[in-house]
């Protein structure tokens, strides 16, 4: 299969869905001629024009709110929030409006809406441009939370998100955009929301991760193999709905679990996953579920500093060895 970049997978998914369905459109800051600050909407403006690729003012609350209104009035918006850090500005519209409208209206309002954004530590973007905030979004009933780690997942899940009749927040990772991988060309290729993926099989320990941490976990697993440790790497892909079944099957097989996320530890989604594993597979666990996470600090600017506060393959290996 041909290999394309993660960011190309994103723009391909958008292009295909925009061709398939005239009500699908893209809006956000610099998504037009500029193609998005990470070039994930590159070429869409040229192909679909300003009426379907809307450059917005710097108005995160109105971007999400207007997307919601347009969804209520017959469109399928894909709104971009440039950095997940800026979802903080649109949190009323995300949490109180988009996520709750279907429920609050007794099921009347149907909201086929995607908020695309990206997060994670880059190369020195500092505390306000480096966060991993999925724990906030996963704590909002009514919202779906998708975080793909590979180009193929990015394409398949974005297409599924666009076709979903619920609000979806789709969180990319800034350090994944240039990663390449095989991606199907089939127009109807989709990955169902809510299905985790076993990215690597193993018997000794289950590593549960999402987004960029899947890449780091796979690297750690390769190293661990050399030491005779077979790690299974479960890529959640979707935090909400969560594929508890796949998690539990793996846990029951290996009896040992490391959860890895880039977000800071306290209140991160890892706690939820760990608690669910305890609730549902307590008797299978041979060791406490270990969390390998970002430290509880804002992300610092300088390279040695930010490297010191987010997980890497070495941290993951240590985490695995701790519970073996």
């Amino acid at each position, binding site marked *: 299969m041909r290999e394309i970049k993660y960011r190309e997978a994103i723009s391909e998914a958008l292009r295909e869905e925009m061709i398939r369905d005239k009500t699908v459109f893209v809006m956000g800051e610099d998504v037009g001629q500029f193609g998005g600050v990470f070039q994930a909407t590159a070429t869409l403006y040229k192909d679909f024009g300003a009426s379907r690729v809307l450059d917005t003012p710097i108005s995160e609350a109105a971007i999400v709110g207007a997307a919601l209104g347009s969804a209520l009035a017959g469109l399928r918006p894909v709104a971009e929030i440039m950095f997940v850090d800026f979802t903080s500005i649109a949190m009323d519209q995300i949490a109180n409006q988009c996520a709750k409208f279907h429920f609050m209206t007794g099921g009347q309002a149907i909201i086929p809406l995607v908020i695309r954004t990206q997060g994670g530590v880059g190369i020195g973007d500092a505390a306000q441009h480096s966060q991993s905030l999925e724990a906030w979004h996963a704590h909002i009933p009514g919202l*779906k939370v998708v975080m793909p780690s590979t180009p193929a997942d990015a394409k398949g899940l974005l297409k599924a998100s666009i076709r979903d009749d619920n609000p979806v927040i789709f969180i990319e990772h800034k350090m994944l955009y240039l990663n390449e991988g095989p991606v199907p060309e089939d127009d109807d290729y989709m990955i169902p929301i809510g299905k985790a993926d076993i990215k690597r099989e193993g018997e000794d320990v289950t590593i549960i991760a999402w987004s960029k941490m899947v890449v780091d976990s796979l690297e750690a697993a390769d190293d661990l193999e050399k030491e005779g440790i077979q790690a299974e790497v479960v890529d959640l892909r979707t935090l909400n709905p969560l594929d508890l079944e796949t998690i539990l099957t793996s846990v029951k097989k290996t009896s040992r679990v490391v959860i890895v996320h880039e977000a800071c530890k306290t209140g991160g989604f890892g706690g939820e996953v760990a608690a669910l594993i305890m609730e549902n597979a307590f008797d299978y666990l041979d060791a406490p579920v270990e969390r390998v996470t970002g430290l509880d600090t804002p992300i610092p600017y300088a390279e040695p500093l930010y490297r010191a506060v987010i997980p890497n393959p070495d941290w993951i290996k240590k985490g695995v060895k701790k519970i073996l």
Partner: protein
Amino acid sequence: MQATKQEKIDLYRLMYRIRTFEEQSFVSFNKGLTHGVLHLCIGQEASAAGCIYDLKKEDYLATTHRGHGHVIAKGADLKRMFAELLGKETGYCRGRGGSMHIADMEIGILGANGIVGGGVPIAVGAGLAIKYRGLNRVALSFFGDATLNTGAFHEAANLASIWKLPVVFVCENNLYGISVSIKKACALDTLANRSAGYNIPGVCVDGNDVMAVREAANEAVERARNGEGPSFIECQTYRHMGHFTADDGKYRPDEEVKYWKEERDPIKNFAKQLLDDKEVTQGGLDSIHDEVKTEIEQAFKFAEESEPGHVDDLLEGVYNQPAANQ
């Protein structure tokens, strides 16, 4: 703008229906049948009636915590409204939403809203969809004076302006946001002047004069339908009661309340004008009143007799399930 006699009678009936609905809601609240917070629009009926009377079913509106009047004017079913206030399965939101979240997607009511400012971007988004889809519709955004100070209003107004969306912003200036006088919260004498900051034409009208409101609204709606972009209307009005049902409104001077209730009541004054102009007789008014009261009674009875919102499928309603998509 010329208005027919029938239109005037309709407008009167509409305002009276809104008020009677609100009065019944209040009775119901005091009986403990409706809980939560209830923000009544008694005193503000003219702006709802005047702005919405001429809209089409397929036009959109988004409103606020004080939205009963707008929803009624847009044609909502009073039975389902009361049922919602009483938390019944037959309510607009099956008892999930209550007063602050009444919506009727079939007739373009994109919801009341519990977040001040929250509905303004939503109305603008509907305007965007209208333009995108090439429809001949309009989206009305209702909000109070105090909402003008929210970031959401600002961002949404700017968006409507730059994209020339078919949106009409209706600011119901009832002089207060809860207890805070708009004089303390905004340094403008005329709130409509804020719209100049977005290059949106703004007018200020007597919000208790239903004909004046109607005229201003219809001009704005026409601009919108003609692709000339958004407009802003400040309706100067007053709420007769407290901010919500538990508020006695004592932060307002007694004479001020008295003035607005006695001299500026939109319904009383319109009745007087209709009588003076011989558009209607007292008997005519009385029978309108009787008809409306009966309607309200029946609607409320329907609500009372309906079964409570179902508990068993509560969680199924959090997400739209695939089966519901078809």
